[in-house]
């Protein structure tokens, strides 16, 4: 007799209100007690599919069966009632609550108007944590906890609800290699206890290491489901991308020149008044890519904001071309030869509802070349300039007057790169330049950064993607809690050593 799958999704179609077809008839099934990988590139529809399974989204068409019975989820509550819980990529925690209250929220266990009693919940959680060897502080506001711990709270939140099916959306993106190992150990233990786990990822080696079966999605369609033991990384990569992937970066050796950017004893505070950057010092030289690696949230954002004039440093100096630019406004920094590819393109890099042309000259609109004599923008010149950028950077856009949100993520990012480079900078600060960008655009952007370096520009690269840092950097600093654990050349260290530094061990201490 054939075993009934615990989850079966049939013919799932999802059309977003803006007309985007995220899923085009997906069939997906998961067996009781397996770890099932859901693999695909950004935008392949993995998250959408799982949000439907967890009740966050409603499918446009299609049916869902749990243990062979058809279900219709109106909200996450219905999915939870059926034993399905999801840990989202962007955590859904109430930052000002402690872990305990985040976990019991909605399941306080007694009348709405009686005093909250946490004793029972605390007992249950203690036992859960004991069993899994998986501890979190229960009484500290979660905003004061590192992301790795926040993720554990999210997982505990679901286990507290006794879910049978645990969905994890890119859980390793924010973890150090050591934390990833710990997470995998916990997931294996859960599997041994009979839980079913759906593991969303775009990282081949993780899927290969952890899962029993893998379903690959591409552009909203299932490419296939394979047993992990019968798969190879090459096979999965081909299924995922639809062609053989060769992310080859040509990087000739180059002797760096004079320092362009010098950071001296820099201290920067974060949003909550904590010291996010602590006494940092380094320099970026002409013809060099300096990479900053590290788990996100270790002060990279604050550092970049301080350098680009978006956040005032507490102490220390930032020197660009022998000029002290500490605390100067961004416009002055751009005039001095700085360009900035910000980490969040939709929030800081572009104005989505404005046109390609308007976005292409953002920050340049006051320059003489785009102005008429009365001080208004010469849109004719701006459009010709934009067309030139579109050609040069191979940007796919419906036209210069189309809103920028009609471009794909990769093309949006290329537009930002084009705009920033057209400022003719001496220093390019690239923060997560290929996040959420398709493979072809990633390849293009990475090669372009190398080209800038070859032309003698200084490039400061911040990325959570370790491979990107390793491929591109001439030198790299590994950041942990606002400090560099070491500044090394990529070829001098092993991945394990970098992993240790990302976890807070100083380079000097490594070889003792």
């Amino acid at each position, binding site marked *: 007799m054939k075993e009934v799958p615990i989850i079966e999704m049939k013919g799932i179609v999802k059309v*977003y*209100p803006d007309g985007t077809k995220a899923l085009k008839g997906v069939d997906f099934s998961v067996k009781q007690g397996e770890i099932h990988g859901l693999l695909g590139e950004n935008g392949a529809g993995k998250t959408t599919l799982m949000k439907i399974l*967890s009740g*966050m*989204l409603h499918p446009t068409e299609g049916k869902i069966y749990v243990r062979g019975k058809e279900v219709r989820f109106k*909200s*996450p*509550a*219905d999915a*939870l*009632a059926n034993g399905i819980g*999801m840990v*989202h990529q962007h955590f*859904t*925690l*109430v*930052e*000002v*609550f402690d872990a305990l*209250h*985040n976990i*019991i*929220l*909605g*399941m*306080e266990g*007694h*009348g*709405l*108007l*009686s*005093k*909250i009693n946490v004793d029972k919940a605390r007992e249950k959680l203690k036992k859960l944590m004991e069993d899994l060897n998986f501890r979190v502080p229960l009484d500290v506001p979660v905003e004061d906890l590192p992301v790795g711990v926040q993720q554990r709270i999210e997982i505990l*939140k679901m286990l507290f609800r006794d879910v049978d099916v645990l969905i994890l959306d890119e859980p390793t993106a924010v973890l150090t290699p050591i934390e990833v190992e710990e997470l995998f150990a916990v997931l294996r233990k859960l599997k041994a206890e009979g839980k079913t786990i759906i593991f969303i990822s775009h990282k081949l080696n993780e899927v290969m290491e952890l899962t029993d079966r893998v379903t690959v999605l591409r552009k909203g369609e299932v490419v296939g489901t394979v047993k992990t033991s019968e798969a190879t990384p090459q096979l999965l990569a081909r299924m995922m991308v639809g062609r053989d992937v060769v992310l080859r970066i040509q990087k000739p050796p180059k002797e760096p020149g004079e320092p362009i950017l010098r950071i001296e004893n820099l201290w920067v505070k974060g949003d909550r008044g904590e010291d996010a950057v602590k006494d940092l010092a380094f320099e970026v030289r002409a013809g060099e890519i300096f990479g900053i690696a590290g788990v996100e949230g270790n002060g990279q954002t604050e550092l970049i904001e301080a350098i680009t004039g978006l956040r005032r440093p507490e102490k220390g100096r930032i020197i660009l071309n022998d000029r002290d630019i500490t605390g100067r406004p961004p416009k002055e920094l751009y005039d001095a030869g700085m360009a900035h590819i910000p980490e969040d393109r939709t929030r800081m890099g572009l104005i989505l509802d404005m046109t390609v042309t308007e976005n292409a000259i953002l920050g340049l609109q006051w320059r003489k070349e785009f102005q008429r004599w009365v001080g208004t923008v010469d849109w004719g010149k701006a459009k010709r300039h934009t067309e030139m950028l579109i050609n040069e950077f191979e940007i796919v856009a419906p036209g210069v007057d189309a809103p920028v949100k009609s471009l794909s993520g990769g093309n949006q990012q290329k537009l930002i790169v084009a705009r920033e480079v057209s400022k003719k900078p001496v220093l390019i600060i690239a923060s997560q330049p290929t996040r959420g960008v398709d493979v072809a655009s990633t390849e293009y952007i990475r090669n372009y950064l190398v080209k800038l370096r070859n032309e003698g520009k200084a490039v400061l690269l911040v990325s959570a993607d370790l491979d990107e840092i390793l491929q591109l950097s001439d030198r790299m600093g590994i950041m942990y809690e606002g400090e560099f654990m070491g500044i090394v050349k990529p070829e001098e260290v092993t991945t394990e050593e970098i992993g240790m530094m990302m976890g807070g061990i100083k380079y000097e201490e490594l070889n003792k």
Partner: protein
Amino acid sequence: MDIGSIISIIVTSLMAMVPIVLTSVGAVWSERAGVVSIGYEGVLLMSAFFGAIVAELTGSGVMGLLGGIATGIVFGMLHGVLTVYLKGNHVIPGIGINLLALGVVPFGILAYWGTAGQHQVTVTLWSWQTKYGKISPMIPVTIAIAIITWWVLFKTPLGLRVRAVGENPEAADALGINVEKYRFWSTVYGHALAGLGGAYMSVAWLGVVQKAMSAGRGFIALANMVFSGWNPLVALIGGWLFGFFDALATWLAPLHIVPGQFILMLPYIMTLIIVAGIIGKARPPKWDGRPYKRE
């Protein structure tokens, strides 16, 4: 200043505190759930008007207060539908309510009672007449409401959910909490308390309906809410401070020490200075004033 004056200023201050505290506490609750409203000024004024009508029609002060609450509920529901369900802007409906009140009340006074700008309310809530001034039972009721609201907000599952919905509705949603329901009824509760405060002004405290009798109290209540750090207990103290300076100003006015206009400014300025000085910068609920949509 003799002891009698001091007692009388304190009695007057407690009377003056009621509408500010009720509105502040209501606004704290609503904003803790993430819904901003600036329409409390208009709600105060309209519920003073409708509360007085209900009191006179039924011959009962208590019914008048309930009429005020009903007025608050109607506008709270309107605001809730627009902001919570239709995901509209949180500020605009408040402007509408305030402007509506400026039209409805003067016209209503004229149309209903046939007097221009002012009407002496004939049925008022019972109060204890002392030689220091009258003391309304609404004073202990207001203090109790502030304390109970604080307790429910910070100690019960209901309060936990309301705060979660205002801080991170996505988190609440993912755990099966009906974000819209909690936000909607929180808005209604906030406006209902303002409605009670408005009816108190006409039916219990001043005994008149005037076309501009809210006199900025709805906005002072919002400032008080912010400076209280969205905490009903601190809002209670802040509201009493306003009442105190209001009473002090009334006491100072006949002495002609400083020009009357400056004295009238006293409660507004002193409340802001003191509460702002004590509490400093508070952090609002993270999703305050932002509509929540799943997709």
